């Protein structure tokens, strides 16, 4: 009772889809407000300042990208975009434009909940002091203060770039990071297009941390979009 349950704004023009998302969220004790158009979405966001936004990219009055951009002008609210398959380009644009994560239609309720939970936790975590030691799964432990990485109990030597890459992913644990975001965070804004560097270092990192790099447990590839550090929730 002391802490109110999170308020989620669902922006979706299909009434049936909206209903499904609302029911799923409400059954997990979220409070839900709805919007059917981009304009309505911005109005609702201004009036209610929700804790998270679930945003469909295809809206009748302009795409979800606009909504993301306008929200980001004044808000850091976590945004979860929903889109159809085969729209990798627009997903990447939305993510680069400030969205936090994405879901591909059709998706299950469990998937939606998991993503939302990560996004909310991330938003909460950013307001707190960073933790010194991060545990990824059962096997990887990262000491952010001492800059040490242990895999299955053994220390693993990482190059500075590999380490920077890993910490960038750790900061967004559970959420997708686009190639561009990673490149800018690790190499700096001038290197946003040198995708192959990223891929080579990512492969090396995977080989150092994963038991079977071809079937990774934490360093997961999102084809056409970027990478995600899978964190157990």
């Amino acid at each position: 009772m002391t802490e109110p349950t999170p308020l989620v704004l669902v922006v979706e023009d299909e009434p049936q889809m909206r209903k499904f998302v609302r029911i799923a969220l409400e059954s997990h004790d979220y409070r839900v407000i709805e919007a059917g158009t981009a304009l309505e979405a911005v109005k609702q966001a201004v009036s209610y300042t929700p804790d998270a936004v679930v945003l469909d990219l295809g809206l009748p009055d302009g795409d979800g990208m606009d909504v993301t951009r306008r929200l980001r002008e004044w808000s850091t609210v976590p945004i979860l975009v929903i889109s159809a398959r085969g729209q990798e380009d627009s997903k990447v644009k939305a993510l680069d434009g400030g969205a936090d994560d994405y879901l591909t239609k059709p998706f299950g309720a469990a998937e939606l909940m998991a993503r939302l939970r990560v996004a909310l936790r991330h938003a909460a975590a950013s307001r707190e002091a960073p933790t010194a030691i991060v545990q990824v799964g059962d096997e990887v432990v990262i000491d952010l203060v001492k800059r040490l990485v242990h895999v299955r109990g053994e220390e693993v030597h990482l190059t500075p770039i590999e380490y920077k890459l890993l910490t960038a992913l750790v900061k967004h644990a559970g959420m997708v990071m686009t190639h561009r975001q990673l490149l800018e965070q690790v190499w700096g804004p001038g290197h946003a297009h040198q995708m192959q560097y990223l891929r080579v270092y990512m492969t090396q990192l995977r080989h150092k941390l994963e038991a079977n790099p071809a079937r990774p447990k934490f360093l997961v590839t999102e084809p056409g979009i970027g990478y995600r550090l899978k964190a157990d929730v």
Partner: protein
Amino acid sequence: MSGTERRPDPDELLARVREEEQISARGKLTIFFGFAPGVGKTYTMLEAARGEAEDQKRDVVVGIVETHGRYDTGSLLIGLELLPRRPVEHRGIQLEELDLDAALKRRPHLLLVDELAHTNAPGSRHLKRWQDVDELLGAGIDVFTTLNVQHLETLNDVVAQITGVVVRETVPDAVFDTSSEVRVVDLPVDELLERLREGKVYVPQQAARAVDNFFRAGNLIALRELALRRTAERVDAQMRGYKAAHGIEESWHTGERVLVCVSPSPHSARLVRAARRMATSLHAELVGVYVETQASLRLSVEDRERLAQNMRLVESLGGESVVLRAEDAAVETVRYARKRNATKIVVGKPTRPRWRELFRSSFLDDIVRKSMEIDVYVISGQSGAEVTPPSPPRQKPLALAGGGAAVAVIALSTAVAWYGFGQEQLADVVMVYLLGVVIVSMRNGYVPSLLAAVLGVVAFDFFFIPPYYSFAVSDLRHIVTFAVMFLVAVVISNLTKRIRDQADSARGSERRAASLYAVSREVGLAPSRDLLLAAADRHLREVFGVRVAVLLPGSDGMLEGAFAEPGTLDEADKDKGVAEWVWLHQRSAGIGTDTLPSARALFVPLKGARGRVGVLALYPSAETRLGDADDRQLLDTFAGLIGSAVERTQLAEEARRAHLRAETEQLRNSLLSSVSHDLRTPLAVVTGATSALLDEHGPKDEHARRELLQTAHEEALRLNRLVRNLLDMTRLEAGALKVHEELQPIEEVVGAALDRMEDRLRGREVETRIPADLPLVAFDSALIEQVLINLLENATKYTPAGSPLEVVARTQEAFLEVEVNDRGPGVGPRDAERVFDKFYRAHEGEGGGVGLGLTICRGIVAAHGGRIWVEERTGGGASFRFTLPLEGKASNRVLPAPEEQESEAR
């Protein structure tokens, strides 16, 4: 089968009906026929036209009528619609011609066109007015026209003989004979002369003297008789035609032919006309024959042109022209006459002096001797009236090189004889000189060899005959030696020349045969229309020295330039206009023809077995060879070959399209049946399961409810996969698939695909064997992920639950090869190819999809330049494999090692 053979082809019937319609739709030609100017043809025509307009209420328009300022004729024009004339300027003179296009556009019932024999001003569409009239009739417009007897082609020279006036403007007899009606406008000769004296007959100023000759009572009587007789002949023929058509009487047996020997002689045209008249009066066919012998090879350019003209004359008179090749012209002519069942041979009188026949019998003699039962008619070659334009004196400059060679060779011969034999062995010396002549005649040709013969005799006399070093001859016997020596040299020159000519001719015909062979082979085998046209262009350019453009009908039926060399079809509109005329009328036009001779090119219709195909345009250049009959014939053959080849590609294209349509139709059907079945099943399950859950009398048991939900969920997921595959397939087929290739490790995509498939792979052991040192490969990660997912999905569908899977990657030559292996039932060799076909499923109905998954895989892999196939896996199971090209060094370049970066980063 035999029962159906005699059934008439409906297409053919339709064509015949159309043809008949066309004939009935053709306009009627009425000719007002007179024997001389001034008999009142135009006047009578106008009167008749007024009658048509006023009594019959027909739409009558005056196309062109010359009143020559005569009041009574002019007054008849009042009230008739006059078509504006087309002004033409030619060499500063303002001329007015019939506006053919305006007439065709106006489309009256009846058009008046005076002076059928008129020659149009240069730059008009047709050379002659009768061609304009022909086109008008073809458009279904009735025409009234006027004609004088002396303008009839076959009577042309007879009239010239009678009157001494040569008439250049002629009309083919066929026009006269096929006209619907001929109305004779007759006037007693005395009255005509009276009118002439009164100045009522129009006489052009410049022809006043000729006219004086023309309008003599004797002439006029003869012309009048000629006109009446010609008309009577026509009526006679009509009568016979009527009888024949109504089966009244078979009065003459067909197949009779008159054969006329055509030659390059200027008098031959007269011969042809005479033969035509004979054939007409006998109702026989006319065949013009020319036999090419050795002698024909020596014909000059002018002679060749004249020969071609004479042959064309035969054709324009409705005869058939034939060129034969043989050693002996007379023998061949008679043989051919027999073969064609000709009963009469028309030959010209010989023009050669009698003495030449001492050595060689004349053509005429041979014909007469060999003709046996065939009648031979000999007709005078000479005709005072026939004026042949003097052929320009042929410049035959003795080639300096040839003359020089003759001098040099004879000098050399002299030296050899001098040092080799001296002044005593005269026989050997003569041989040396003759050898010299042979060398010159072989190397330098006829004239230099004659020069060498003369020089040889002179040098022989000068150096070897006493008194030496003088041209005087002491012994008369030597004169004989000179004569024999000279004669032998000339004979050698002649023989050598003949051999050379034969070789040239053989080379020429070999060249023609070779080019024909090459054309028929290349054009016939060309796989596409563009290649075919390119091949045709190359050969036409080589053989005729022309630049080529080809116009073919486009999808809208309008002619389009399908092929054009640079510099052709530039003035698109004008050239296209000519091409369209050719297309419409299926006759050649342009340079060298009677129609639109001022065009930039020669336009030839291309015909195939099923009808018109297109138009070939030949643009002449400096080295164009289209002059003689041989070339024209060759061109016709070429055009025929190209026409049927183009038609063949068009038919092939049509067949291909029809096949595609049928295939598409079949695909659509199987898609519909697949989709309707495969989409409905999961939908039915979802609907059924959810309705059971909603039903208040439905299962209350929590376990049963959960099971129903589980089923509905699974079916919904399956539905999702089906729709995804259908969409992918549509995208692939629409060509909307965009491949964003980026260099990346295959390992990532394999990982992503396995991750995506996690739920469905649960309970299976999946082994991955991907070497760490694989190079980066350029591919679209989302698409290749899809390929892997489809392959893995297939494996889960068609192999027993829990059986292990394996994903292997390795480099194989220039490719990265990826395998997805299972331990299922495998794919038999029979299905190995077909599993990748659309809608094909090796095992029906095992919870499978629409049979598109592998088709999509193949499409995606092919878009990457790779290949996908399935193999029997050793130890059982299937091994699906696909390749992606490594693409040289650029794509797997070595990236900077991390160690180098390390120092920089710290």
